């Protein structure tokens, strides 16, 4: 029997996707591009939220997983000329493998130790992208726009340079990842993850193996993050080591905290808010990071659990 509110939950998320589908025909071209980028990065935040919001594990190593997807996709296109679909699949696979390896090593640690160990591995990955610069082109990076063949479907070709293709590609991947996260959080697995987050010992006493569930969450989180990195490469044609730097581990943390940890729509909202605040503030002053910081502080004061977390607490407790 379905839990109360299940229909409303699915309807809400479907409505968000339909809203995004419709927005592309009403917003000006610049905002269409912005929204496409936001959706790609929101996928990254969704992945991060699976680990932080539901398993309660705060990682500073996700840049490694995001960049694994980027590099696997970019390098296979650059050196082997593989098609976009296969390159995307390889990007997702690479990040899943990296997440598994990371989890097997780091999940013995918890809380702050986990944070630090994941950061160390991610920094090692970042330095490796610099060290093997003859392959990765180091911090300068490389572009794939000349090597990437257009997508073919239904006898038609879709060029990645087409803004509509970018937007709808981002929307498809975003919609899939959003629905996957909704399903995951409402599934028995998701319930166990919440149990692990709230009280790991009690969950163990109930017969579950917390380590296995945390590993599962990390693999799901890393795979989704890698899908985002891979898609970013296909859409914007660039891969560089800056995407493996610690900043790209901090970004999804900020987006998730701002939008609301442990909420399915929080990552999208947080990513959109941060992206637009940075864009607007940088047009007003060169000290825009100060404005961004002040905005974040105000939002956190009003919504300590993030925007969607605040809405859930105050007005809609049924929100996942």
């Amino acid at each position, binding site marked *: 029997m379905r839990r109360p509110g299940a229909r409303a939950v699915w309807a809400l998320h479907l409505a968000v996707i339909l809203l995004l589908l419709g927005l592309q025909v009403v917003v*000006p*071209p*610049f905002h269409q*591009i*912005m929204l496409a*980028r936001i959706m790609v990065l929101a996928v990254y935040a969704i992945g991060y939220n699976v680990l932080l919001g539901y398993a309660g594990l705060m990682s500073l190593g996700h840049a490694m997983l995001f960049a694994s997807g980027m590099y696997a996709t970019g390098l296979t296109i650059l050196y082997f000329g593989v098609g976009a679909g296969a390159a995307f699949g390889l990007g997702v696979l690479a990040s899943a493998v990296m997440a598994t390896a990371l989890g097997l090593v780091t999940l013995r640690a918890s809380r702050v130790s986990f944070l630090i160990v994941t950061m160390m591995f991610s920094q090692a990955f970042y*330095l490796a992208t*610099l*060290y093997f*610069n003859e392959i990765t*082109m*180091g*911090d*300068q*990076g*490389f*572009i794939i*726009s*000349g090597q990437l063949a257009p997508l073919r479907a239904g006898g038609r070709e879709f060029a990645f*340079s087409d803004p509509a293709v970018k937007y709808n590609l981002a929307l498809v991947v975003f919609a899939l990842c959003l629905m996957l996260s909704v399903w995951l959080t409402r599934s028995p697995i998701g319930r166990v993850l919440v149990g692990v987050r709230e009280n790991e010992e009690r969950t163990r006493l109930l017969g579950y193996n917390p380590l296995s569930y945390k590993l599962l969450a990390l693999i799901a989180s890393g795979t989704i993050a890698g899908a985002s990195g891979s898609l970013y490469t296909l859409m*914007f*044609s*660039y891969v*560089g*080591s*800056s*995407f493996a730097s610690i900043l790209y581990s901090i970004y999804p943390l900020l987006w998730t905290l701002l939008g609301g940890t442990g909420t399915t729509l929080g990552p999208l909202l947080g990513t959109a808010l941060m992206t637009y605040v*940075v*864009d607007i503030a*940088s*047009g*007003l002053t*060169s000290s*825009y*990071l100060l404005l961004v910081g002040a905005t974040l502080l105000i939002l956190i004061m009003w919504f300590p659990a993030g925007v969607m977390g605040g809405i859930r607490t105050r007005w809609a407790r049924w929100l996942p």
Partner: protein
Amino acid sequence: MEHVSEGTRVASEKISRRAAIKAAGALVGAGIVGGVGGFSPAASVSRAAAQPARTPIKIGFQVHRTGIGAVYGRWYERTATAAATLINEMGGIAGRPIQLVPEDDGTDPRRGAEVVEKLAVHHKVDFIYGTLFSHVVIASAPRAGELKIPYFVVSEGYHVASGKLNRYVFQPGITDVRAQVTGISGWLVKNLGKKITMIFPDYAFGYDHRDFLGRAVPALGGTIQARLAIPPTETSFSKYFARVPADTEVLYHVMVGPGVLTFVKEMGEHFGARRPQIFGFIDSLEGVDLASPGLEYLEGTHFWEAFPRYAGGYPTPHERFYRDRVGVNDAGASVRDPKDVSTYSHMFGCWETLFVIKQAVEQSGYRDPTPKDYRALIETLEEVQWFNEGIQHPQGPKKFVGQIHQSFGQQFISKVENRRLKVVHRTKIEDSLYPPEADYRKQPL
């Protein structure tokens, strides 16, 4: 809301005949009107004064106001603003004033691509220009190509000339690293020594030096004794100096970033008075006062400069005019704040590139950001072979190779004497030339 620079405010004012004649008179009086190419500001002013006010040409300025490139960005913006102000005083571009539309990219590749989109799609600028850092250029260039908007960079990286980017990307205002290295290598081997050890940062900028000096020196009868790559996170350099072969005659360094003071200090501690000849690229010390404590050990060493920081290094009226207009004193610092040292060897590229845009617009008949007008502008620019020395190109004449969208200019070698840089050699343009390895003209528009 558009953030409008000082140059923009000048642009927005209607240029009076009196102001225009005054500007032209100042130039004529200074004896620097024109240049080899026959450019005549007075004529431009007359045309502009005779025409009614027209819609401005909007030039998106992708600037590193924050992030690691902020020191360069500050001076790039001042230089671009000074050039825009001058062009507007001279009557604008094809009688239309310039409006600079600056956007900070944070010296970040992702934000760089976003800024290109914002300038092209939101601000609807005619052209985008001004980017310096290689990773920002490389990340932004594909978006400029997809949006089909000409993108003029002032980066000095080899990425434009390598053919890796696209037909919309040009670098007409500054010589690339490969050409710089090729240009100075002959003097280096002949005057300082044949056995060279290289110390360079372990990322893109360093690799261009590693690869191209590594090719040039053996061809001149010299040898690269060792190539020491230093990770960007390194804070101590003594262990690298210990790996410098004992028979090294020249230590070639291109260290950049905040660690440069430590680098120099530890170099002095390691080698002391019995040091090899030392040759560096001024990139390490752009924005840094050579009289800063800790840099004493550089006395007597040599540096590459693209444009001599200290007045008198290249004493032409054009250089003097440019220096005064940008607001740089004889020691290479701001006239308002002598502690604010400029990035003199790079920022002239912003000045010159803006004049290249002016020339390309006026010669091609460009009017609107349409595919037809862009095609005319790009094809016109690709046909240009020389940019003549003058107030538009104060650093010197430049050979432009349309195949690779890259300019080649003279370079300078200076020696540190009394904590100042004194020019000891000026290369010829021919010293820097290399065969093009790409042809952008074959790419469709």
